[in-house]
């Protein structure tokens, strides 16, 4: 192993160690605040951000849907003592997970509680609620659930291209180097938690693709090589892991992200919007998961015209979704260009899938469409 690589390993370990240290410190601080308050014979409390749409706004500066400053105080009283005890025990579990380099899914945590005697959960929804509370509690301090070692069940999408993922083994401490150019016709699969990962890349952008089929075509024909990019398959609305992976990659390597999705209200207002600014329902975690660097490559409503794409008529639900986005979504309200594009789509009354380009030849997308679009990257929809 070269000295540079050794340094890199050390650096990664150090970074992850620090991250965990901060998380544990925060858990301890929360606990000791409670401890101190009790000893002073006061009723301790926990402050959670209010998770309602009324406490959510679009931050133009940060580029995502942001949780407001409203707080809900849960004081330890007779009626809250049960959940209070469970929340603290869940935090204790998190601390021990961090200290032992382990993790737990929601289901795992639920079963772990079976050792807590009276404080055990009788149903997973109970434990999920407590975990969501903890997630919200720590989100205020910029600590994500994944950092608390509570990971989602769902894994992330597929990755291929000019990227080396540095993945430290929690048991041995050896940092694995995963070269995403070397998966042949396969791809690297984003793990459930991406917090410990680091990246090496010389790519100039990340291409986030809606469908597995399109990803497969671009991967098989090594589009990443010709375009010097990283391909990520989102598979519909991207999972937490996928979003966090793209975000961390874009942050760490300061490279732009281009979204390539179907031209329909779902592709635009659900997939792309979620990728870029997060969702209103889980605004407290958007700070970790949104990708403000993302731009909309296509397929745009104008592309349908310009590339003479075959279309399908908009369905009732599409129209409703588009109108709702124009009217109520703070992200779309913020961007005139998006309003225009959505109105154009509604006016045409049709939608087009990314694979519609296959009308002009299966590899038309590689040979003509993407190169042409990328030449005008500055003109992508925000």
């Amino acid at each position, binding site marked *: 192993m070269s000295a540079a690589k050794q340094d890199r390993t050390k650096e990664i370990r150090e970074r992850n160690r620090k991250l965990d240290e901060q998380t544990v410190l925060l*858990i*301890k601080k929360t*606990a*000791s605040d*409670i*401890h101190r308050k*009790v*000893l002073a*014979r*006061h*009723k301790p409390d926990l402050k959670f951000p209010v998770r309602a749409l009324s406490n959510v706004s679009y931050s133009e500066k940060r580029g995502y849907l942001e949780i407001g400053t409203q707080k809900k105080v849960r004081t*330890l*009283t*007779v*009626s809250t*003592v*049960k959940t*209070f*005890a*469970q929340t*603290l*025990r869940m*935090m*204790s579990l998190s*601390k*021990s997970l961090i200290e032992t380099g382990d993790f737990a899914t929601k289901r795992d945590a639920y079963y772990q509680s079976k050792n*807590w*005697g*009276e*404080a055990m959960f009788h149903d997973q929804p109970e434990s999920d609620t407590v975990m969501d509370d903890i997630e919200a509690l720590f989100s205020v301090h910029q600590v994500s659930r994944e950092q608390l070692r509570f990971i989602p069940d769902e894994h992330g999408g597929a990755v291929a291209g000019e990227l080396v993922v540095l993945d430290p083994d929690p048991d041995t401490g050896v940092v694995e180097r995963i070269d995403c150019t070397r998966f042949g016709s396969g791809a690297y699969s984003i793990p459930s938690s991406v917090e410990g990962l680091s990246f090496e890349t010389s790519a100039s952008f990340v291409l986030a693709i809606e469908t597995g089929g399109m990803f497969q075509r671009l991967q098989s024909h090594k589009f990443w090589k010709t375009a010097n990019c990283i391909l990520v398959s989102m598979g519909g609305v991207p999972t937490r892991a996928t979003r966090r992976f793209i975000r961390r990659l874009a942050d760490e390597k300061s490279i732009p992200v281009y979204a390539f999705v179907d031209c329909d209200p779902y592709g635009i207002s659900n997939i792309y919007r979620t990728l870029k600014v997060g969702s209103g329902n889980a605004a407290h975690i958007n700070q970790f998961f949104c990708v403000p660097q993302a731009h909309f490559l296509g397929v745009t409503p104008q592309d349908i015209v310009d590339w003479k794409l075959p279309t399908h008529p908009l369905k009732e639900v599409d129209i409703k979704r588009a109108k709702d986005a124009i009217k109520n979504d703070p992200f779309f309200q913020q961007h005139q260009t998006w309003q225009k594009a959505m109105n154009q789509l509604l006016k045409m009354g049709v939608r087009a899938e990314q694979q519609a380009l296959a009308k002009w030849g299966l590899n038309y997308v590689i040979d003509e469409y993407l190169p042409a679009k990328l030449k005008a990257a500055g003109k992508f929809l925000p």
Partner: protein
Amino acid sequence: MNTSGRSNRKSSSLPARTAGAGPLFAAPVAATGAALPMLTPSPVAALPMLTPSPVAALPTLTPSPVTALPTLTPSPGIPAAALDQPVSRAVEAASGLAPRPRREGPRLTAADMAGRQREISISEFFAKNRHLLGFDNPSKALLTTVKEAVDNSLDACEEAGLMPDLQVEIHRLSEDRFRVAVQDNGPGIVKSQVPKIFARLLYGSKFHTLKQSRGQQGIGISAAGMYGLITTGKPVVITSRTGKNRPAYHCELVINTKKNEPEILGDCEVEWELEHGTRVEITLQGTYKKGRHSVDGYLRQVAIANPHARITYVSPDPDDGGPMIFERVALGLPPEPVEIKPHPYGVELGVLLKMLKDTKARNLSAFLQAEFSRVTLRVAAEISERAGLSAGARPHQVSHEGGERLHAAMNAVKIMAPPTNCISPIGEELLLGALQQDLHADFYTTVTRPPSVYRGNPFQVEVGLAYGGGLSADDTVSLFRYANRVPLQYQQSACAITKATIGVDWKKYHLTQPRGALPVGPLVLVVHVASVWVPFTSESKEAVAHYPEIIKEIRLGLLEAGRRVALHIGRVRRDREEGKRFSYIQKYIPHVGIALQEILALSDPDRETLVEVLTGVLERSRSGGDET
């Protein structure tokens, strides 16, 4: 009506709407007034005990020379047909309507038939129609016998100003034969009155008064004795003593059903431990029952409504383990009910017509003022004017038609409500004490409503409620109905009290209530209707009639009691909740300790301190002493 009532005059000069049961004490007025007539009864429409009518004359009918011991079998010489007459016939005959030939067939002549037609004694009538008096079946007969004797004893004690101390004994003589003995510390009965009171129907002191009392018609105890005689052939045994310096009188009586006359089988003077009082013993065929219609249940209900009485009960069931004693709660007797004159709004046409005939008043104005309550000179003038009669008219000469106009006028003129001080309620405090003593519950409340008036009759409603404790939570509530302190045992569903109770939305008061039924829960409801004239649905005096005014008062009383019990139930629930919360603290605080110990690496003593302090903090907040 009652145009031939001259000989009744003496007894009917009293306002005559109420009835009275045969009392255990001497009643001179009634005795002299009513004992006399043995004559053709007046043509009053019906038997007095069937409809409250102004009959004053006791329908003791033409005496028959036969003096055989009363039996159920007709005496020789009396055609069976005479006894087998249907009730309507009997009533007709008893009320003395002009005899009409029966159309039985062409074979009999009017003369033949006349030979068969004869008077029927009131005793005979009831011997055949015993269900009218509450002797329909053996178990009811036993309870009715106890009830009649107890009613009489209580009335007698109260009128004499004595705190009642009753002893009720039931001795089992064989499987279905019992001897009921009821003994009181009342004033006793003078020797000459004893036979009439206990062995003659419709002999009493209360029939002619408008006053709150238990008994009304003067039938009860004699009927019980008659029932005993019919079913076992045994006489009624009476022991009575009127004072310290007089000997006790002991006798055995039977009622001659033919003549409605008592017959003394034997009498003597005896030593008796009581200074004064009366003991009646009746041997009868019956069934001793436990549960809802049991004697002990009945006496418990009596005790609740009569907190000034002490009742000892000796049960025939050896399992009951000795005498059961219901101690008195009250220190003194209830205020004696005051007798009042009828109010013009409550008087019936027939009664009014009879009063017109019987009055001593010389003119209509004086009559109205003298015989009715709340009638002033001005009101009397207004009534006469509206009736188109002269205020100076002689009451005896007012025509039937004029009487009708007078009746209409009396109901049309605005007249002040009758006085209500004539009612003697149990009282909230005493009823509460009685409930607390006789029922095992967690919560008790009582409501005495202000007196009110229905159809010119003052009445007052009281409600008592006991909740929780030993009362069964899964059963329909026990509804104890009372009229003038007498528990009503049968015909619950026909009673206004039941109707009013069902009409309350008990769900509001945290009880369950099936649609259109009594509520379910650990609850005893006591409803007492006291009145100078309690309107019963029938002569069996088992259900209060559905007067809207009465139902409304009962409802208001129940609502008030309901609100109070709801508060109590709410409090109990909160306490239970509190208890649950307390166990919550006990359960979960240790986990707060464990979690903080794990996170902060506390020592065990540190953790224990934390748990202790936190428990203290939460308990303080639980009892409301929080600092924030």
